[in-house]
Structure formats: C-alpha cells, structure tokens
C-alpha cells in the first residue's frame, strides 16, 4: 500500500533556512544542509527547498545547497522558487533535484508546464499553487502571495494537470505559518477534483492538523516547516501519531 509522504520544507534565503507568517515576517530557522541531513536520518520521505528570493543578491543559491545535499541524501529533492524556463529546470535537475515546483512562472506562461513535462517528464513538474480566499472562492496568487491573478485555484489546478503537471503543491496563504491548521475546505475542493497527487501546505500547528489534512482534506502528502524547524515535533513523532490514526506511513 502506498504510504502518505511527510515532506519537510526548507524555505531558503541566501543560504539560510527562514520561516515567515502569511508569507511575511521572516525569521532565521536553521542551517539548510544540517537540517536536511537531520530530517533524512529521521525518516523524511522527501525534501523540498523553496528559494523565497527575499534577498536581492544571493551569495549562496538554492542550487548550491541542492548540489551539496544530493551527494549524501538519497530521497527525492524538490526545488522551487525562481524556476522560469526549461533551462532553469535543466539546471535544477543537473544540480541533483528530482522535481521542480513552479508557481508564478506557470501563471505568467502556462506553456512552461507542458514544455517542462514534454522535455523532462511529468514526474518532475510540480505545480505550486498559492491559494488565498477572496470574496467567494480561492484564487491563485502570484509573486510570493502578493498578487491575486483572479484565476480560481480549482480551475488553475485542473488546467495545470491537463498541461502536464505531475503533482500539485497546494499552499494556503491565509494559513501559512499561523499553525491554525490546514485550510481543509480548500484541500478537499482540489484533491477531490484532480487525479494527480496533492501536497498540503500551510498552517499545520499540531499533530491533529496533519492527520486532518490527510483524512479530511484528502491530501496525498504533507509539507511541514515551522513545526519541525522550531523542534515542536519530530518526524518519528509525526509518523507514530499518523500510524495510530490508521494513516499508512513508511517506517
């Protein structure tokens, strides 16, 4: 039986792991290579590195980190942030990434998803959707959650799937870093209507939230950041809890 994936997410800015709240107020959260190694040894099922690009000039890029990590960490690595062209995808894969997460660039140029899928395979194209509720429904936001594109998130998810995305990383802007729990309504809406796997992100603050994201929200994987970085909880604790709740996990 396929197990639910626990994916630590390292938001990286100029070579350091940071974490914000609602995509703002960034705080230092650790050394990326050290954290990556720790999570790998603790049983992380994948790792995601998101370059949040807060610093205008970076001395250490996210690809430098991936290059280092890929030599000793043998689980799938996803890189996101600043992927704008098939050339960027090629560079990320060459650095050792297995997948790329694309957000703003896909909204600006949806063809990037189909070109990427054709050239490198759907399995390495993750459509990252920053979804925020506005008025009547959730919309896809671009530019790090700053700009509402006016495109309903569900429509964008279906369009992305049709263009060749192999997975959807669904971030709730409203819940990001709040630790109030995933936006379950949003998760349910998207996960029930697409056929590709959905990764839940944004808002997990305790173990119950993680289980809810899977059992109520229908997520196939969960992305975890603050909870782990601030040592509120460890990966073995998460897996033990989920297993007790009847959620299949890798041991």
């Amino acid at each position: 039986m396929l197990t639910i994936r626990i994916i630590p997410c390292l938001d990286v800015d100029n070579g350091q792991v940071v974490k914000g709240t609602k995509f703002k107020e960034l705080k230092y959260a650790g050394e990326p290579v050290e954290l990556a190694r720790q999570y790998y040894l603790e049983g992380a099922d994948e790792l995601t590195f998101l370059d949040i690009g807060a610093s205008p000039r970076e001395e250490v890029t996210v690809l430098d980190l991936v290059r280092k990590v890929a030599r000793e960490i043998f689980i799938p690595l996803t890189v996101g942030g600043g992927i704008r062209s098939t050339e960027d995808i090629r560079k990320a894969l060459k650095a050792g990434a297995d997948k790329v997460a694309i957000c703003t660039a896909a909204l600006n140029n949806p063809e990037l998803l189909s070109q990427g899928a054709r050239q490198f395979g759907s399995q390495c194209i993750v459509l990252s959707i920053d979804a925020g509720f506005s008025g009547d429904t959730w919309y896809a936001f671009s530019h790090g959650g700053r700009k509402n594109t006016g495109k309903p998130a569900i429509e964008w998810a279906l369009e992305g799937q049709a263009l060749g995305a192999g997975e959807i990383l669904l971030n709730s802007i409203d819940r990001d870093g709040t630790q109030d729990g995933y936006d379950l309504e949003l998760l349910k809406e998207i996960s029930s209507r697409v056929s590709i796997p959905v990764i839940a992100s944004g808002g997990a603050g305790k173990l119950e939230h993680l289980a809810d994201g899977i059992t109520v929200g229908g997520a196939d994987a969960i992305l975890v950041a603050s909870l782990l970085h601030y040592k509120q909880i460890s990966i073995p604790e998460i897996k033990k809890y989920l297993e007790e709740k009847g959620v299949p996990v890798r041991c």
Partner: protein
Amino acid sequence: MTTGIIDYGGGNLYSVVNALDYLEMPARLVKNPEDMENIQRLIFPGVGSFAAAVNDLKRRELFTPIKTWIENNRPYLGICLGMQLLFARSSESPEARGFGVLAGRVEKFRTKRIPQIGWNRVSWVKENSLSSRLQGKPFFYFLHSYHVSEEQISAPWTLGLADYEGITYPAAIHLENLWGVQFHPEKSGWVGLQLLKNWLNWDGDRVVNYKNYSLPGC
C-alpha cells in the same frame, strides 16, 4: 569493475551517479556506442515516455548495442522505464517497440490517483541476492504511471511485487544477469543504497544501513 550509466538525454541520472559515487563504485556515463567499451555492468535509469526513450536511444545509436548487451546475458539493471523497456510494448506508446527480451506488456494504472508517487512496500517472491539484508517487505520510492501487467505476477522472472490501490504488479524482475526494478533505489534511502550494493556485489567500506529512528512494525 566499471559500471556504465546510460545517458540518453532524457532522464535525471544524476541521482544514480551520486549514489554510485557515494558507494565509491567506479562508474561512467554512456552517451554513445563507444562508451560501452571497457564497462562490465550497465545501469539504465529511465524516466519520461516509452517512445521518447526509444527514439533518443536510436538517435544516439545505443538501442541495438544495449539490446545485444542484454541478449549476450551481460549484467544489466533497468530502473523504472529502464525496466519497462525490456518488454516489447507499452500502452503509453502503442507504436513504439522496446527491447522485447521478456514476454509481457506494460500498461497504465487504472487507479484513482495517477501517477503513483511515494514509498510503497515490495514483497519478494523468492530468495535472491538483490534482497540480501533487505528482508521483510522493505519500502522503496516509486514514481510512475505505467506498470508491468498484473498478468505477469506469476511469470518465472518476477522477483518482487508491489500493490497500488488494489493492483498487484511485478515491481522487481530477474532473469540470469538481467535485473529490473520499477522503483528508484537511488532515491530510497539506505534501503536503496543497500540494494544497489547487493546488485553491484560490492564490498566497499561504505556502511549504508543506518538510520536513527525506529517505529513499530519495522
């Protein structure tokens, strides 16, 4: 002992390169027929579509040399698409023909979620050198939409089975010097590294079976 890693321009083979490097196994990329000289083993890590891989291999004049390598019973390990190409046909690309050295078909999952992405168990159906130190039903990382047909679960070459949403299919195969795995050992943590080590029959010093967590059921 040098291992060749097929580079047909399509897949992401850097993880395999990194894994062999970590195991301190000499390896080199095979981009054209000349690169196949002076190698003793061949790994084919394939991703992408069946037809695209066949076309790329033909363009690089690698298709026939690889097929000959396999027919001569030289050591081959196909990963993911590299395993599927051992069959003649895949429903992914009805017009394309793979190496066709094993009888059987590759077909698309008829499941709710496609592709299968994540960690799943493999149950070995017989004793084998690949599973040494990997008893029980170890977890490996899977990433695929097509699989070897469930009609082949009792085939003499079926070595291990996986189950996805109720479909049981061959996830590892073995016939003399021919090996294939649907999962990605290079992305399956220490379990995958141990499997590669077993296949390479490599007694390097690198210890791979470590982890600092334990959970019930392991």
